[in-house]
């Protein structure tokens, strides 16, 4: 661990202690519950994680899994076998006590949008014991053909560059694309046609409808200096202001972060491939190398439990490493 912990040289407010805490969270998992827009978080001890998960599950209407940033095709030092760690993620999902209703993949399925990488990802994910898998693209998935290959494989029936929505047991899920047509000097971008679609998509919904938004790049300014944010996310969130419960699930930054703003809860998931440094703790957001024995403790999946009526959304981030 000492290999990549740095002092607060960039004056960004993340000191050694804070970073250690962050890593401890990533390594042990954390339980998030939301009650009427107030998010409570509780770091979990490794051994207690499954027990608490079960307790939470008892009152849940349904649950789903978020996985992110598989980067199939990546083979550098930070993780020479990303297919193996994706397989471990699938095994974790399949060994859970409760079967999730479906799986969300929040992008960067592949490293270079190569057909062989998408093939491998599809092959491994075929083994998930869950209903549908819902995808949104990461910037690594749209490197060729203007993202056409992604659409053909993972985005059939979607709008525009791959955005869509669906309803599940009373909740409204919205998959957004913020990795195409990026402007020089800017951040992630949704674009005007997608924003128009979003405004129209939620128009008929009752304000009591729980909303879950998922997209690759964070829809909040995590760290704009590293491009970790979305230029026009404010406008998108503006359309969702009237709703009592909005949960935003993102990937891209390969670490757990969370924030509450009014009735909106933001959460980012771990990668199944490699960790990235905490904001400002490294010269760039590139893959972070950790000792091989620690890798699986900084990769993971998110198990989301949904409780209708209580506006309660509990997210349990579990590392791939087993206790």
């Amino acid at each position, binding site marked *: 661990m000492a290999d990549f912990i740095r002092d607060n040289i960039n004056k960004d407010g993340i000191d050694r202690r804070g970073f250690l805490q962050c890593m401890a969270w990533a390594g042990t998992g954390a339980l998030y519950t939301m009650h009427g827009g107030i998010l409570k978080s509780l770091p979990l001890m490794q051994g207690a994680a499954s027990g608490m998960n079960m307790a939470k599950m008892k009152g849940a209407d349904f649950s789903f899994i978020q996985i992110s940033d598989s980067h199939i095709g990546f083979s550098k030092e930070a993780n020479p076998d990303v297919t193996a760690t994706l397989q471990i993620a699938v095994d974790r999902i399949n060994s859970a006590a409760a079967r999730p209703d479906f799986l969300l993949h929040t992008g960067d399925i592949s490293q270079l949008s190569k057909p062989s990488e998408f093939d491998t990802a599809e092959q491994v994910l075929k083994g998930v014991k869950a209903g549908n898998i819902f995808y949104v693209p990461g910037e690594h998935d749209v490197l060729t053909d203007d993202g056409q290959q992604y659409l053909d494989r993972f985005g059939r029936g979607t709008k525009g560059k791959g955005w869509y929505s669906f309803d599940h047991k009373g909740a409204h899920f919205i998959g957004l694309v913020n*990795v195409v047509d990026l402007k*020089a*000097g800017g*951040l992630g971008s949704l674009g005007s046609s997608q924003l128009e679609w979003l405004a129209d998509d939620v128009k008929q919904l009752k304000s009591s409808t729980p909303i879950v938004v998922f997209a690759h790049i964070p829809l909040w300014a995590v760290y704009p*200096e*590293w491009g970790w944010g979305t230029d026009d996310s404010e406008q998108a969130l503006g359309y969702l202001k009237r709703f009592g419960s909005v949960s935003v699930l993102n990937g891209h930054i390969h670490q757990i972060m969370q924030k509450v703003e009014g009735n909106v809860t933001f959460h980012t998931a771990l990668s199944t491939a490699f960790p990235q440094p905490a904001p400002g703790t490294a010269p760039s957001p590139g*893959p972070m190398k950790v000792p091989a024995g620690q890798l699986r403790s900084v990769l993971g999946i998110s198990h989301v439990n949904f409780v209708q009526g209580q506006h309660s959304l509990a997210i349990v981030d579990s590392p791939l490493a087993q206790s």
Partner: protein
Amino acid sequence: MKRIRWIFVCAATVITAFTLTVGIRPILALRPAESPAGGAAVKIDNFSFGPADVKIPAGTTVTWTNNDDVPHVVASDDKLFKSKALDTDDHFSFTFTKPGTYMYYCSIHPKMTAKVVVQ
């Protein structure tokens, strides 16, 4: 005689190689050693272009090399040129024939911006 034939074969190889690498632009996977004389090099390190401000005479070829563990895409703001996704150690070259200031960025990490000034 053998020696003359050997020189001839060498010369033919050099000419063929030159035609193959310089004849088509933009060129992917061009090694720095094969860059035409007088070309300029830009390195991509830690999500930034270096040097970020290159001044060159018209007709110069600029070659970008990605040294990062993540792919980058070199794209001009005015869509004049755009590389494929450059994986680690991949190269992209473009020859600037007209004077002007050419702003460019990484189309998947748009915070990465830089420019080429052609005199």
